[in-house]
């Protein structure tokens, strides 16, 4: 009973975060328009962008997408960014490094495969919710082959069959297919970049995650998720560092990369 109440409260909170976005966005737009008008009236030539429209770069296909996501919670998100950053360098990375040194790659791959296979219900149900019957079929075939021939998912046998390889699906993507926008940008502690829509999706997906109904103790669930994260990170040490090094402003770079990457996944 108490858990249900907590879930209800969290959903309500996310709902609240989601709804005001349109209001916030239009307020931002409005104030931008106002600022522009002011500049024009003061004769500020340097920011007069109108000539751009009919010059040689008019074919620029990216032009309308630069804003991408509203970020009214910038202060909060930026704080979480620093928190996650330190968490990675001080805890996750050293642990994943030690783990990588001790555990051979074959075993780490097996753990990754099992975790991936276990999440089949999330991908399957969401493919169906999006009306992607073929994709759901591929997911089912993949799950069946890997569970039976791949010994409970230890080996990713299905990988050898191109027809069974599909892109990831989750509830956030389902919402997007149903016509919901990102809402506002949310940087979640521990989980990283997200949006109001995808955060609600993530919450919903936990109920499709077998770990939710197979294991009762919260501590065990958290331990499993933590273990998975370390295992996954052991494959990716260096990626985050490279991304940070490439960026002039890592926060903005990550926010933008998140939205672009999600848009691609949604399209697939």
């Amino acid at each position, binding site marked *: 009973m108490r858990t249900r109440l907590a879930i209800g409260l969290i959903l309500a909170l996310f709902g609240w975060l989601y709804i005001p976005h349109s209001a916030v966005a239009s307020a931002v737009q409005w104030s931008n328009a106002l600022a522009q008008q002011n500049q024009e009236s003061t004769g500020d030539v340097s920011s007069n962008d109108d000539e751009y429209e009919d010059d040689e770069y008019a074919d620029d296909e990216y*032009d309308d997408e630069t804003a991408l996501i509203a970020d009214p919670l910038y202060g909060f998100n930026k704080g979480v960014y620093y928190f996650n950053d330190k968490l990675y360098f001080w805890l996750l990375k050293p642990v994943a490094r030690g783990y990588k040194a001790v555990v051979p790659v074959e075993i780490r791959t097996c753990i990754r495969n099992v975790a991936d296979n276990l999440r089949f219900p999330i991908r399957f149900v969401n493919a169906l919710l999006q009306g992607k019957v073929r994709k759901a079929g591929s997911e089912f075939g993949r799950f069946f082959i890997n569970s039976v021939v791949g010994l409970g998912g230890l080996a990713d046998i299905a990988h050898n069959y191109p027809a069974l390889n599909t892109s990831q699906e989750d509830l956030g993507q389902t919402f997007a297919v149903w016509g919901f926008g990102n809402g506002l940008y949310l940087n979640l502690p521990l989980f990283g970049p997200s949006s109001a829509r995808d955060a609600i999706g993530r919450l919903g997906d936990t109920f499709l995650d077998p770990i939710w109904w197979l294991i009762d103790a919260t501590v065990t669930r958290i331990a499993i998720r933590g273990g998975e994260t370390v295992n996954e990170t052991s494959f990716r040490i260096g990626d985050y560092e490279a991304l940070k090094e490439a960026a002039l402003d890592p926060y903005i770079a990550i926010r933008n990369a998140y939205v672009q*990457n999600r848009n691609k996944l949604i399209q697939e």
Partner: protein
Amino acid sequence: MERRRIGWIFLICMVVVLLGPHVHAGAPTETIQARINQVLEVLRDPALKDEAREVKVEKIRAIINEIFDRTELSRRTLGRDWKKLSAEQQNEFIDLFNRLLEKVYADRVLNYAGEKVVFEKESELGRDKVEVQTNIITSDNKEIPLYYRMISKNGQWAVYDVIIEGVSLVKNYRTQFGDILAKKPPEELLEILRKKVNEGDTSS
């Protein structure tokens, strides 16, 4: 007579169908494929294995410069802000931005560990523009979609954007540069870039 004419029309249609897409779709893919193979040759060359890093980087840089349109890439990265820069600043920006990219990506390329490059398809984006879609298959069997956007100038195809897992390099940098230029003059952006290019590793 009538039947013969239909036969001819059919034959012409077949030829168009069979040859058309290949003739049309080939050029950009072939261009980039040839260059990627050149880079892979350098990376696999046993004679170069023990050479200094700089020797290999120099060789790869020469190949990359052939296929990348540095000016187009830089110009699109700034978008409409491009015109805020003077001609001189634009030239410096092109130089600095490309040095930054080289600095960031050189090691990733040099860390090549037998990844395979699979050419998926080529899709048209508009007049004189295509996207060549490839998949990088890593040693642990993960697929990383990597698309090259190319533009044709005087019959030469050159890359103006790279899209990794849906994330466009140009778009990603544009949000960052745009954010800086919204608050600061171009000179300061150049100063930030100068520092970034000249500094040592600061990944932690």
